């Protein structure tokens, strides 16, 4: 399956990435090659084969929903690129 430049632009949008014109061309070529290579999987008949999303046969363990000591608000905010008081701040969400 060949991937087009428009596909790459669309996927970049979904992944919240941004590329220059040169990079879009490069990624179109490289992703195309990789997908072409991966295409070999389609020669295998997997009709009726159960998918394995996880190798371990375990169920999700449950525990009591209880408040515990963990990091402080100050520690949680110590890596914030920008903050105001006890909040993370971000640029405007809606344009003027």
């Amino acid at each position, binding site marked *: 399956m060949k991937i087009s430049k428009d596909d790459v632009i669309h996927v970049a949008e979904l992944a919240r990435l*941004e590329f220059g014109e040169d990079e879009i061309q490069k990624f179109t070529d*490289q*992703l195309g*090659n990789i997908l072409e290579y991966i295409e070999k999987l389609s020669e295998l008949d997997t009709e009726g*084969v159960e998918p394995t999303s996880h190798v371990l046969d375990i169920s999700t363990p449950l525990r009591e929903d209880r408040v515990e000591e963990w990091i402080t608000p100050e520690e949680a905010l110590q*890596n914030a690129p920008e903050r105001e008081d006890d909040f*993370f701040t971000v640029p405007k969400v809606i*344009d003027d």
Partner: protein
Amino acid sequence: MELPFLTIKKAGELIKGKEISPVEITKALLKRIEEIDGDLNTYITVLGDSALESAERAEKEIAKGGYKGPLHGVPIALKDIFIMKDVPATCGSKMLENFIPPYSATVTQKLVDAGAVILGKNNMDEFAMGSSTETSYFGPTKNPWDTDRVPGGSSGGSAAATAASLCLGSVGTDTGGSIRQPASLCGVVGMKPTYGRVSRFGMIAFASSLDQAGPLTKTVEDSAILLNTIAGGDRRDSTCVEAPVPDYTQSLTEDLKGIKVGIPKEYFVDGMDPDVEDSAKQAIEVLRDLGAEIVEISLPHTEYAVLTYYIIAPSEASSNLARYDGVKYGYRASDTKNLIDMYKKTRAEGFGEEVKRRIMLGTYALSAGYYDAYYLKALQVRTLIKQDFDEAFKKVDAIVAPTSPETAFKIGEKTDDPIKMYLSDVLTIPCNIAGLPGISLPSGLSSTGLPIGIQVLARPFDEETMFRVAHAYEKNSGWSGKRPPV
């Protein structure tokens, strides 16, 4: 006595017997790092003062009779993917260049609780995506056997630091071969435990259904000692299994009578370096001489494992790496118009090319209309690969094969060709896809003097058989303890 060249086992014994002090050995390693790591670049962060403080603390504890065990006072390094409270954790990325974790990973905490001295954080491919440590934002690590060559990856810093005696051992991670392949290329022992054996809590996520932490060491015995400490259930990682952890050092016998070892014909691939093939064949003869019954087996879906991997791993990565959005921690681009623009510029500027390539690949594979053709198909083939191993392990107790089809390649040789780079892991990936334990250990040197490795795989949670076969081979191969010319 040259302290940096000691094994963990030997150093632990000497420390216990008060023949050497933790401070003395820590200082010797820090001095050696100072002298030669400028060129090798195996560390992103070296913990000079805090390592000395914990060495001093260990020394006092031991003097007072509070000996904790074989890692007490022993200097160990960590791949820069494990977080440690108040110590920078970069994961090899500009995105986390200034990130200071407010808590520690379970692996880190277990080592600290065992009294180990954490020397520093090892270089790695960015977010563990790579097979050469060349994608690190902090520059490539060089192979101590030949500094024009890569150490393998993604735990290349850990493997090279262990090989060059810049730590006594390190803990890395293996998603598709990232412990075993660099161990093979640097001539050390690298071990990936069964998926679920070691907690992933505080280990920066790449592909969550495949990632597993494990030791890189000079010997199989050291590997067992480290796994004893880091293994075990953890309520903070729901995929970490609450199963008893045996004392792995007890499985290190030198006799392989009654053990059936399978040799998968599919692992002797076209284009394999003839020295690698010869080395594996000689290793098989050593195992036979030790009493193992050698059985030829087939793992028919082997060639599809790498294809499956390059759908599953990027898909999981595209989801895991969505968290790097410039809001709560990590890099944030400046001068952005609005929130979406900030996300895009942050990620465009903060991630390197290989990480972007995998995010793109994963996002595409999971996007509307392609899910069944790629992701679901890959998960179905994963079942077939796992069934191959299930069938094989009805007939044999362990599987032995080359770790990497080649020895260390030149820096820059594969950076322009992603598929060529991805094929570096063709022999290590199936083990991750099936969640098995696997260990790579030295099996020779090529005609050009570069290390070659073989790997031993075993049934899930049967690290004991894996260690037993590896240890017996190591003790009788004549290839253990070879040191690079640094």
